[in-house]
């Protein structure tokens, strides 16, 4: 290791052993931590993966049994981790916010001041919003604001451009009450500020969850969120 000329080889060997699966758990965890911040290491891993892939591609297999796809579909429907957040909260309503939920709430609160005030300046609402929600994506970046106006109307103000395939649509949800489950507030026809009118619900309260998901065109076929979460956040009381 002290010999500088050996270092490239050491890194390449490590990348190779990582791709072969020869590292023990501790070494692998350590390597993956370095991988996240070292582009050269990533390049070496990519090269090893592509190199050895050729051996995998020599494998020839008989067609899978018919049940295999069925089991995969069932597994996907059951576990779609990134898409069933609202449903999960419904069934685990007594469970406090997860660590991630806590940090997302924290991040939402920290950007709230900046974003909410600029919205107030940009467009005077037909009445001040009762509550403001900053919806964050899974990278904790703000993607949209929701303002609750009364017991059925909300205004959605996207903060970034959201790429929506032609056969998909953005749908806005809220969770007025864990026992009721998620309720659709409507579809965003375009990525711009939109006034939505949902069903009459209990008056929105602080900490109420709002979420935007990507759904098939026309909205979720099941009446519950089924697609990936574009953003979610908890309602806060603006200081107006």
């Amino acid at each position, binding site marked *: 290791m002290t010999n500088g000329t050996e270092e490239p080889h050491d890194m*390449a060997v490590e990348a190779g052993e990582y791709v072969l*699966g020869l590292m023990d758990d501790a070494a692998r965890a350590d390597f993956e931590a370095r991988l996240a911040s070292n582009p050269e290491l990533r390049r070496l891993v990519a090269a090893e993966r592509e190199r050895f892939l050729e051996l995998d591609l020599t494998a020839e297999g008989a067609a899978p049994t018919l049940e295999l796809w069925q089991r995969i579909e069932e597994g996907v429907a059951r576990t779609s981790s990134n898409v069933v957040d609202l449903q999960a909260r419904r069934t685990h309503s007594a469970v406090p916010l997860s660590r991630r939920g806590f940090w997302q709430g924290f991040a939402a609160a920290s950007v709230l001041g900046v974003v909410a005030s600029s919205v107030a300046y940009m467009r005077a609402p037909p009445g001040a919003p009762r509550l403001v929600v900053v919806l964050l994506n899974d990278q904790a970046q703000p993607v949209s604001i929701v303002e609750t106006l009364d017991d059925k109307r909300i205004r959605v103000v996207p903060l970034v451009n959201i790429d929506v395939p032609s056969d998909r649509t953005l749908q806005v949800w809220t969770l007025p009450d864990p026992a009721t489950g998620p309720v659709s507030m409507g579809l965003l026809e375009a990525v711009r500020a939109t006034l939505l009118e949902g069903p009459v619900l209990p008056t929105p309260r602080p900490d109420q969850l709002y979420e935007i998901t990507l759904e098939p065109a026309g909205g979720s076929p099941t009446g519950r969120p089924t697609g990936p979460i574009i953003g979610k956040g908890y309602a806060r009381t603006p200081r107006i």
Partner: protein
Amino acid sequence: MDYAGLVQACARGDRQALRKLYDEEAARLIAVAQRIVRRREIAEEVVQDAFIQIWQKSATFDASIGSARAWIYTIVRHRALNVIRDGAREDLLETDELAAIQDRTAVVDDAFGRLATESRLRTCLEAIDRDKRQSLLLSYVAGYSHGEIAGLMRVPIGTAKSWVRRALIALKDCMA
């Protein structure tokens, strides 16, 4: 086949994209898993779990550490390796040792032999000493650990580690 596009479509919740990946790769992925776990029904379970992971992890696919196709095969290999490390290769201990060795050697020789004659990987592997090449292939193709390579090749574990390392370096230099 636009593998990266299909993985990205999975991340947007498009199940048809997952189905296309399945139709294209499932049979071969089962064969890859079977090289490691040996039993067909376990290989199918590996691929089942792997496809659910592909769906769940699709948003985290990162092209900077390899192509989407390599990413898919990596998920299957990791899953297969976890299965045998958890199950400690019961089959291998139970069966006749000589038969087991012949079986593993056959799997590795088959994968090596199927590389195209004009393949650069093949040319470079052929240039490596047989023991070192065999150690590398036992690891990648059959999912062998250093200890298992040492056992099968009847050498100390340090020798097995060193053989794999030298083979990795020789391969990288040859293919550079």
